[in-house]
């Protein structure tokens, strides 16, 4: 690990000032100053020499203001420094937003969930082995313009949606799928105060600039997430190589509003298969106004993967992903609430 200076943030103003200092024109991922929350991603990537910040700003002292879990009044607000385990174990989250509770509970390990924060979780970086191993020169995300070793390498874990000819690295998280499905708003704190953006506008598909992963700028921090409405009929289904403590091969976040047997509103988001948190809006449109049956679930699943592009080792994700979507829909439609 390379040397760094370390300071603790006393308040949000101080934190964003410290993080903006010396930002130059680097993308956020290469900014000289990086925020430290749970550290489960940052310290790991610093040990791998993938991330090389010169300054660490420890934002954990902001937890007293930024970690509240506030359901109620038909909406939800989650502080960005709330720990994954605390949100997953919250009774009202489990009751009114099971897709959120399960996406958190099925991620990582008990130890990592105790450490990792919600804000850090959505900002976690890909698990692409060519990205994480700096002995590979050709990674457009790490070394822009150097090529992509995964294209013709071992790409079993890579993305089939949202890919470009520059990068096929999978967005690895789970919680983000729940947020994008429920139209969450991200509260961002920066020098000019706070602003809200739709969660769907936080991440950027790789396109020709895979080194730019989000729309956040150096000196900006996620301070909270908020969601309108309650979504008791929602599920997160995750298929992976082992039953626990593993990243998704394919996952689905589903939320339905069913009244008198008719689907009034439907949300479908996909994980483990795309370069960014993925909302399948064409698939959702097929559900609205319909009564649920298995044939409908299969049509929706096909629509969700209509644009998927597999490569040598990861084409299986398209068939697997369809079945995950169909099964998750079945679970959501039939769950007792």
């Amino acid at each position, binding site marked *: 690990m390379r040397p760094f*200076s370390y*300071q603790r943030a006393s308040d949000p103003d101080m934190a964003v000032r410290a993080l903006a200092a010396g930002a130059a024109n680097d993308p956020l991922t290469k900014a000289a100053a990086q925020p430290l929350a749970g550290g489960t991603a940052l310290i790991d990537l610093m040990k791998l020499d993938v991330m090389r910040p010169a300054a660490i700003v420890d934002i954990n002292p902001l937890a007293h203001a930024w970690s509240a879990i506030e359901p109620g009044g038909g909406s939800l607000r989650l502080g960005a420094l709330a720990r994954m385990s605390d949100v997953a174990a919250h009774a009202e989250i489990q009751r009114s937003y099971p897709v959120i509770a399960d996406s958190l509970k099925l991620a990582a390990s008990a130890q990592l969930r105790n450490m990792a924060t919600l804000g850090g979780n959505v900002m976690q970086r890909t698990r692409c082995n060519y990205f994480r191993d700096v002995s590979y020169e050709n990674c457009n995300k790490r070394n822009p313009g150097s090529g992509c070793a995964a294209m013709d390498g071992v790409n079993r874990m890579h993305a089939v949606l949202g890919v470009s000819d520059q990068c096929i690295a999978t967005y690895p998280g789970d919680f983000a799928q729940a947020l994008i499905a429920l139209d969450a708003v991200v509260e961002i704190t920066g020098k000019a105060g706070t602003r809200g953006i739709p969660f769907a506008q936080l991440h950027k598909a790789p396109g020709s600039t895979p080194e730019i992963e989000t729309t956040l700028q150096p000196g900006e921090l996620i301070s909270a997430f908020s969601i309108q409405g309650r979504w008791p009929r929602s599920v997160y289904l995750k298929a992976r190589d082992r039953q*626990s403590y593993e990243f998704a091969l394919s996952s689905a976040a589903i939320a339905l509003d069913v009244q008198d047997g008719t689907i009034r509103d439907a949300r479908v988001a996909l994980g483990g298969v795309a370069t960014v948190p993925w909302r399948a809006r064409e698939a959702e449109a097929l559900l609205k106004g319909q009564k649920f049956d298995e044939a409908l679930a299969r049509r929706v699943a096909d629509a969700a993967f209509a644009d998927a592009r597999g490569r040598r080792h990861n084409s299986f994700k398209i068939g697997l992903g369809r079945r995950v979507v169909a099964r998750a829909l079945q679970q959501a439609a039939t769950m007792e609430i």
Partner: protein
Amino acid sequence: MSDKSSSRTSTFDRRAFMAGAAGTALVPMTARAAAQDANVPVARDPSLPVEVTLRVNGKDKRLLIDARTTVLDALREHLKLTGSKKGCDHGQCGACTVLIDDRRVVSCLTLALAAEGQEITTIEGLATDDRLHPMQQAFVDNDAFQCGYCTPGQIMSAVACVKEGHAGSEADIREYMSGNICRCAAYPNIVAAVKQAAPEIMKG
């Protein structure tokens, strides 16, 4: 050649040797106390060591460390508490699990500076005098290890698993202990140990 040297060899202690070789722990404190005032960088110059006070197993320990030092390295290399193990050093294996403010965490991904002011409990802090903690006793009773390398992490994780209320069934124990890898695959016996210790821990 002499009796002396052979007797020295016979009392050779691997742990003492390793600890001596690690060497740099507990150097004299020359730097000023670490700034507790949050506005002041604790470690402004990355090339200089910084003073930190860690509370470990109920005792305050003052250390002079590099800012990059993790809690795991502070425990093992500076405090000679070698019970917590370094397996992967990337938060994947769980061998370094300790409790911080009663929550289980991986100490290899926790900066020592970020743990200042918090209560760190390691495997060395679990027993009371000569009595093993119920979870330690349960691991012995159930033969819940072979090589033993992952065991301190397993035991710390298991204590927290029980206290979180996640030891109610074998399925729960397996799910909530999945962050601790055992390459000897002692898993069935680990599950049995957690089941045995759970009622006693919840009682007391």
